[in-house]
């Protein structure tokens, strides 16, 4: 079984991943909706930018975050001036990095589910007396729920595994930014810590498999009435 310190690492990882997807979900939904439903100038560009974290080396994403949210970056200075806080070397920074890396996966999952919904169902709801907003809330949103759930699980799993952007952006601070992958990497540098590596690796595998099972279950459940 994991030691107390290892449980703390697992708890920190779960906290970072949970914060990451909660932070990213509203943005991912808004982007997925725009890309699935609207035709506008710059749509291709937006689509490309959203997918960047998927194709860039994570270290580069981390470095870009560092440029923007670092002491002298525009975002970093704004946070310092407005809230007297910083993301540097904090778990909040790790959550941001994980959230950015999870964003493209979450947008894709939600977008697919939105595109699978027959838009004419919303028209039907409108003729029955529903405003555009009510039609969205009672028809589109419930039909997209399995996709939203799948996006959350995928994003959660991606966040749990996040390494490159995190270590580049907020370093490897015990108790703050040392999540499971960073802890495994650190333990590998220490002679005689093989048992710890094994336990942390098993914890990672168990959490990822659990997330994958939940996502499969959601997709199946959703497929029943969406498709």
């Amino acid at each position, binding site marked *: 079984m994991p030691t107390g310190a290892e449980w703390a690492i697992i708890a920190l990882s779960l906290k970072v991943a949970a914060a990451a997807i909660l932070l990213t979900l509203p943005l991912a939904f808004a982007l997925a909706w725009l890309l699935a439903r609207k035709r506008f100038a710059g749509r291709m560009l937006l689509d490309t930018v959203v997918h960047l974290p998927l194709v860039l080396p994570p270290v580069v994403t981390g470095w870009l975050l560092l440029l923007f949210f670092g002491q002298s970056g525009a975002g970093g200075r704004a946070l310092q001036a407005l809230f007297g806080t910083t993301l540097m070397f904090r778990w909040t920074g790790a959550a941001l990095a994980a959230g950015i890396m999870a964003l493209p996966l979450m947008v894709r999952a939600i977008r697919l589910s939105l595109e699978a919904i*027959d838009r*004419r*169902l919303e*028209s*039907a*709801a*409108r*003729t*029955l*007396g*529903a*405003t*555009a907003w*009510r039609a969205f809330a*009672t*028809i589109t949103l*419930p*039909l997209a729920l399995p996709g939203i759930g799948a996006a959350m699980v995928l994003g959660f799993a991606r966040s749990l595994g996040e390494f490159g952007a995190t270590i580049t952006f907020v370093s490897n601070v015990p108790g703050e930014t040392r999540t499971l992958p960073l802890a495994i990497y650190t333990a590998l540098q220490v002679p005689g810590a093989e048992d710890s590596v094994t336990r942390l690796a098993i914890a990672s595998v168990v959490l990822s498999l659990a997330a994958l099972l939940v996502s499969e279950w959601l997709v199946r459940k959703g497929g029943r*009435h*969406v498709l």
Partner: protein
Amino acid sequence: MSFDLAIEVPRGDRTVSVTIAPASGITALFGPSGVGKTTVLDVVAGLVRPSSGHVRVAGETLFDAAAGIALPPERRGCGYVFQDGRLFPHMSVQGNLTYGWKLAPPAQRFMTLAEAADFLGITALLDRTPRTLSGGEAQRVAIGRALLSGPRALLMDEPLSSLDENRRDGILQVIERIRDDLALPILYVSHDRAEVDRLAAQVVELA
């Protein structure tokens, strides 16, 4: 008084232009497929916007290009029975039937759920989900859903097209009872001459 409209709708590279004079009972839009019959229903329902003209239903102006009036679909009170049903897949039959009923102002409702289910012979289906229904059953539920929203008129888009011969007569009888017992104006789209002759008081041919 029922449908009074004169509209022009751009549709691809041509313009659908239709005039319907007010008449009681059922007004049928008749013509081969592809001439824009469904487009006319979409215009009356407020789902497609014409480039010019007016749409009045039961004395109420729903659209008037000259006066700048264009009510959104939810304020038109046009119960629309779509050709493909369009039942909400995530709701039970009962959820589908009461969707519009719950949104309608009480004074506008003219049927309860029990009355509509009885009228259409779908009382036994209330707990089912739409995907378990046969074509005829789904069409009855779609008609019930439109009636329960308390509409001032019904728009029906080839409601018999997906049904086999012996189910057609059942739905035709339902439509005749809506016309006679509920005295609801109906704009009815079809490409079948016999169907149109049996039902309609006024036939508008589109070509």
